């Protein structure tokens, strides 16, 4: 009897236990896979959000420096040269900024340009044919749009995409901000 009791489980018990263990194992593996995928997805989402956010954070203070000036006839010239006020949005913006160091009595202004090229947001002194003065503000953007709503209000939309974990799809983040230029013009 004692020997018989140590002999172990019956075949039926073993099969049932194995089936339960297999089921549990599958559930656990599935749970782990889901958790890992969720982690990868969040990392992906964060990545695209971070790219869009970085783009907006770097562009905004540069645009804040845009300034309206007056021409030789004393007429006010807008801070934003292109695009014109109203739709459609453009992927490039040209604006006027003072040349540093600034002499407040005789300021000199230059035109700067921000645009998207091969996924990189670039800034230069409005010299499309010269890449020597290009500055890369951030990378990894899929689209960048500037919509000038008024002389002093610009809506910027940044979109970034990264491939989805194993699925072949993309994570996409689309961030939008409104830049209100500080009041500088006077009448």
């Amino acid at each position, binding site marked *: 009897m004692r020997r018989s009791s140590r002999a172990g489980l019956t075949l039926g018990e073993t099969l049932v236990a194995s089936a339960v263990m297999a089921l549990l194992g599958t559930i656990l593996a599935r749970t782990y896979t889901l958790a890992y995928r969720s982690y990868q997805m969040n990392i992906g989402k964060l990545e695209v959000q971070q790219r869009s956010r970085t783009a907006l954070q770097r562009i905004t203070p540069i645009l804040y*420096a845009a300034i309206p000036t007056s021409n030789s006839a*004393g007429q006010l010239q807008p801070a934003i040269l292109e695009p014109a006020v109203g739709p459609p949005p453009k992927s490039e913006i040209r604006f006027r900024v003072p040349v540093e160091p600034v002499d407040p*009595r005789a300021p000199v202004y230059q035109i*700067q340009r921000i645009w998207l090229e091969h996924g990189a947001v670039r800034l230069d002194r409005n010299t499309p044919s010269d890449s020597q003065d290009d500055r890369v*503000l951030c990378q990894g953007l899929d689209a960048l749009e500037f919509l000038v709503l008024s002389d002093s209000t610009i809506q910027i939309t940044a979109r970034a995409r990264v491939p989805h974990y194993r699925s072949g799809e993309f994570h996409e983040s689309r961030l939008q901000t409104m830049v209100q230029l500080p009041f500088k013009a006077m009448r």
Partner: protein
Amino acid sequence: MSRSRQQTQGVALLMAIMFLAALFSLSLLLLAVLPLEMRATGRQKMETEAFYAAEAGALNALAWMETRAAKGQPAIPSGSDEHELTGSVANWEWKAVIGTVPVNPSNPDDTRPAYTVRSTAFLDGTRYRSISVALCQESMSRFAWFEESGSEGLWIGAESFRIDGPFHTNKYIQVNVPSGFYGSGNPSTFTQGVTMAGAAPNSPDGVNYNCPFGTNNPPFDSKGRPIEERYRKIFGEGGSSNVLPRVKKIQLPSHAKNLAAEAWGSELPPPTQIGVHPGLGSSSNRVEGGLYIVGDVKKMALAVSGGNRKLTITQGGNTIEVLETVSGTAVAPDGSIIPKDSTMVRTGDEFAVYSGLTNGLVYCTGNINSLSGVNRGKRTIAVDVAQGKDITITADLTRADTSPGQAPTGSRDNLGLVGHNIWIQNSSSHTEANPLDIYAALMGGRRNADGTVSGYVGPTDVYGPLTRVRLFGGLMMGDKQTWGKYSGGRQYSGMTLESRYDSHLANSPPPYFPSIAKFRVVSYREEHEQSAVDW
């Protein structure tokens, strides 16, 4: 039974442990992700708050400076080069440091007050973001037409007036629009902005078109909606956006003490002896200020001699000649050479040569009863406004860098006149075909202690011969009075004006020409991302 029960308990324990492990690993993954997002969001919120706090400091400083300037005080307390303001926004603190910008030695003629403001946002004593702003105080000479305060709104004939520069009044304007004006080929009455501190009652744009001697012909429909085509005809390309009612008042100064001090070139008491005194300041042989004239001037003639600038002043029986060698050397009365960049003052046979040029300011404690000539170099001629002293222009007042009748193309010879009244001598020889030419920013008027305003620019005699004046510059007045008398709808006496705005006077005003309580922001820069924009 008991054996089987033991085996089942073992499986349950194993299952529980495995589930717990799975849940634990899941929560660990979430915990790894969440702080990243929270930190990013928190950082963004903080940066936004810091930016607004720094901006609040900059705007506060600007408002503080404008308030002081509106009271006639220097934008920061005199005697100091810096002034610090502090404040807070929610948990944030800001500190704004206002600093004066000295006159650029390479451009000594431009004496407009200029400042920098550096505003920094702090949280618990830690600096987060800074904004750096450069400002230049606007000169009164920026206007094509300025009137501080008329007894009523200024009447403007839409057909007969043409004001091609900035226009401001502290009241409001009344525009007489004759029938047929909107369809005529006439140029627009104004070409740049019209600002008014007041507004006509019951008018949607603050302008009164209900002219008692004309037609009520406004540029808006019966519901007050602008008809832009009509607005462009009166107010230029900007249409209805070119007329702004209820803007901040701009006041004329009540005195010219600062001009006197700058002309004398020293904090020391100025001379009281009648005559022409070079502004030597604390020096004995170097000109540090302008020219300080005590007493009335019978005649002041501006001229150019050998490319150098010359001023001949007649006081009583004395004639004083001031020659500044701005262009090259000159020969003194005794045959000696006056070096370049020197100032010679000669009275009769006596003369003295000082090193350095004047700062372009000529200040007179009395009236200047006759002013004419050709101006060379930037110059401001001022009299004691507080004592009601006047300047009278008796003949053409032109400039060396511009042919008479032509519009100036530069600012080298910008001239400004500052008086209680600026009178223009009537002369029947100055007709439409042969107008009296004046190239200057003319400022006549003052704010009195009781708050009233007096002084203007006009003819010496409104009943005198009709005089045609051609002004290349701007007109700044206290209270414009009538310029002539009319009969049958036609002006037969006084003066008529053809005014052409000179924008060079706005960007490069005559030296020490009075400022207004407005500051132009020429640079606004966040220092946070500095490296991204520096080349």
